């Protein structure tokens, strides 16, 4: 595909190995509910007919961390160097391997391990490219890299790098775009430093144990790396900014609040008996396709607003959908696979308000 913008959202499905002795309810589940039939198709053994899903890439249980990185993140990191914004999302049920894919084994602090995930590998690669570029250009090109790490929990934003701070607000500025007001930004000079910032924040995330799962992430975590390159050619200074967002979404079974749900009903909250979401129901009724111009009083979820730019437009996005192959997870796996298929359709469209009358006079 020669288009520069072509296919800005790609989907990678990864099947984790069966669990053993992890305390998950899926332990000992030896019955599989799916098979990987080719590098881009997966067959779900649903009844009465098995169903086949197609994605940009499907990785089976034996796929190495390095090959996940090569297919998903390599390109995105490279385009960040070229001034594009890039985002990698990890999506899936709790226990399906999101954290392993993104970070690596949780007890691991040494990021040279073979099992390290997409995030440490992206850091390494990014700094490899930065150093190479800086060297090649002599003195003319310099880079500045800073990180922030926030968490979205119950539609509130918290700074993972400054746990003492109260919840933060999203704001917009004509020059900076959408930003989290007051979020700490740390300058980093190497992959190791970036990794340090990441692990510091990671420990502050909200996790919870339920009888279903040993550890379930209740929040969306967004690690943002802002890359600024400065190039001076003949006294003209050229500044380019780009962002790399690494997003670990809350377990998909928890995501009643984002646009990820299928036809789940919004419930009346039993505490204050409020029908708060009625507006969202109506919102779904309001059709945009007939070209009418309408306003919806309900703001985007914080996550979609923050990453608005990553869903279409001039950004590159990869969604890693993690699934557990066990038959006990059939329901969640099906819904993850369906989400991943819908994700390809997400686009941030700009409707050009074009005059159709009187074009030709």
């Amino acid at each position, binding site marked *: 595909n020669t288009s520069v913008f072509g296919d800005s959202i790609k989907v990678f499905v990864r099947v984790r190995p069966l669990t053993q002795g992890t305390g998950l309810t899926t332990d000992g589940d030896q019955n599989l509910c799916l098979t990987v039939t080719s590098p881009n198709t997966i067959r779900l053994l649903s009844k009465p007919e098995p169903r086949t899903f197609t994605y940009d890439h499907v990785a089976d249980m034996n796929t190495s961390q390095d090959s996940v990185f090569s297919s998903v993140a390599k390109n995105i990191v490279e385009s960040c160097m070229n001034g594009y914004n890039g985002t990698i999302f990890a999506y899936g049920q709790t226990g399906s391997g999101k954290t392993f894919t993104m970070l690596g084994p949780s007890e691991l602090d040494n990021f040279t391990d073979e099992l390290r995930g997409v995030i440490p590998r992206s850091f390494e690669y990014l700094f490899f490219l930065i150093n190479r570029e800086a060297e090649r250009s002599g003195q003319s090109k310099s880079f500045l890299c800073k990180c922030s790490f926030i968490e979205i929990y119950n539609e509130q934003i918290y700074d993972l790098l400054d746990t003492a701070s109260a919840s933060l607000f999203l704001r917009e500025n004509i020059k900076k775009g959408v930003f989290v007001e007051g979020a700490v930004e740390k300058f980093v000079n190497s992959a190791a430093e970036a990794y340090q910032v990441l692990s510091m924040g990671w420990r502050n995330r909200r996790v919870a144990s339920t009888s279903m799962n040993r550890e379930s992430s209740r929040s969306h975590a967004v690690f943002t790396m802002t890359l600024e390159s400065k190039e001076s050619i003949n006294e003209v200074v050229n500044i380019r900014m780009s962002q790399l967002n690494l997003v670990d979404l809350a377990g998909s079974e928890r995501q009643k609040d984002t646009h990820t749900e299928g036809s789940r009903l919004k419930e009346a909250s039993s505490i204050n008996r409020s*029908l708060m979401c009625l507006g969202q129901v109506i919102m779904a009724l309001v059709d945009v396709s007939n070209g009418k111009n309408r306003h919806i009083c309900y703001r985007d979820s914080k996550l979609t607003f923050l990453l608005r730019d990553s869903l279409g437009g001039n950004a590159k996005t990869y969604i890693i959908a993690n699934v557990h192959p066990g038959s006990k997870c059939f329901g969640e796996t099906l819904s993850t696979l369906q989400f991943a298929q819908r994700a390809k359709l997400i686009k941030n469209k700009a409707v050009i308000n074009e005059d159709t009358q009187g074009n030709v006079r």
Partner: protein
Amino acid sequence: MASVNSDEWRAVCDKFTNAQNLTEVESRNDPENDPFRSKYKARELLREIYCSLKSFEAGEGEEESGGESGEQRPTEQPVDGQREDGQGISGDSPAGMRAAKLGAVEYYLGVNHVDTEELSAGQEHLMNCMKLLDRCRVSSENVSLFIHVRNQLGILWAGRDETEMAQGFLETAESNYQRYMKEDGSPPIDMTEYFTSEENLLTHQERTKRFELAYTHTMYYLAQVYQNLGETERAATYCHSTLQRQLQLNQFNPMEWALNAATLSQYYITKGRYMEGRHCLSAATVISGLAGEVPSEAAAQESETESERREHLRQKRAEIARCWIKYCLNLLQDSKKLLEDNIGELDTDRQDELKRARRREEEEEEKGRKSALLFGSEDTFDSIASLEEKVLCLFPLDFTEARSVFLVGQNYVTQAKEYFQMDGYVTDHIEILQDHSSLFRALAFFEEDLERRCKMHKRRVDMLEPICNDLNSQYYLLIRRQLMFELAETYSEMMDLKLTLANRQADTQSLDNHTIKKFNSLCSASAKYFQMFLDSLCSPEGKFPEILEEEVLRPALVARFRVARLHSRLISSVPPVQLENLNRSLENYKYVVQYCEAHPEAAAAAETELELSKEMVGLLPLKINRLKARMAANN
């Protein structure tokens, strides 16, 4: 059953109260790393209650009629359609009461499991409840439980994408309610009362309130089910009745209600139903007023609660104002569509015809108004009606009417901008400006004086141009593209108006220098913004894409075509400049033709433009050659 006053029974009641308290109050304070602690505790209590109830039964040695013992029959998937409730034990008999009590515990256990993410277990308990109730006739003792359990099952099945299943449960709940209200209608017992002592029974008023609320939830869930099934009209009706019931029962938060009504207005607007849309908006404005005064800035600085309240009220009111803007805008635009002829000018025959039709319909209007769904309580009805009178809901048919709608819209623009300021709310602020610009554009259609029409377009340029140039092109790419396109079109519109005016004044084709200069500058400005739009499609390296993405395909082809036309229209008496303009023009026409040749599927996106481009690609070289020949001859 243990007697109502026995100690065992009292212990059961205490456990129940405790479980309710754990579920509804304590659970809110559970730590984040152990979020279901209280719910798990409540679950244990409910299980104990269940065992006690069972043992009371056994103690009294009554026959069980099967089906509710420990081992369940294999559960066939039941669909809760319209079922006859005729047979079975009566609800208020001892057997019926026992079934209802056991059913209620199963219900609470079911909800508890669903809340703690154990859906299948939850489903099993809820189905057990259904089975217990199956044997009873609907009565004031159990009707509330009938409805609650079906609401829950509806939610559960909808969550699994089994919408029809959910629909069955909810529709049965709806018909249960309606039948009960028709046949009995006395305030029914609330399920919590099964486990309360005599002296703590609820008042009739409280019973009614709780029951009506459960049914309101049924309406609310059905609205969603119909929406998921694609039955939007029906879904909207259920949204409407949910809102109306909230008002009647006095069970609402004013601001929340107002926002919901305002959102519903947008549904009606997109369906072209302005009378309903206006009614929802007027109700939204009136009810939002019940949320109280906006705290002053000074008060907000004093306390954090006041500051939050101020923020909240201002934002929501601004949102409602934006819904009003859309109302005015769509009304003007729809009316423009009705009135314009094939070149986009006012069709006066059509105007007269519509005016006559309106006079005929005016008498009908009163009747239509009464049959429409209305909101309001005794207190608010008049205020809503008087707010409605301030703006038309019929299509404006001439400048005076259009202007009155425009002014209302513009007033809401000012209100909305007070909150959604550029600093902090860039996207919202620009959207409001775009609407303001569109309001002007629609109004200009009704303006007969071309000079004044031109000034309206100038206002649009003035509000959009500075922003378009200031916005960060990376983060606001999509908005900027919209702005560039709109600016290009506005300049082009102004250019045409100037030319028409000049031709009118100077009977001949000869234009004075001043007019030519004006014309050329508008023409170049238009071309500049089309070109900026095209440049925005380029990669960071400045390369134009070889394949245009679907959503920019038409705009890109149209922009190329328009650039071509604009260059051929530039007026110059200097041959080399003329040549350059014609070459630019040809190059852009060629692009359109060649792109559509290489990608035949694109042809449909810009049919007219393609046809004319082909023609021009044939004609322009002749013109260019003639010009070249003339230039050579003169040299």
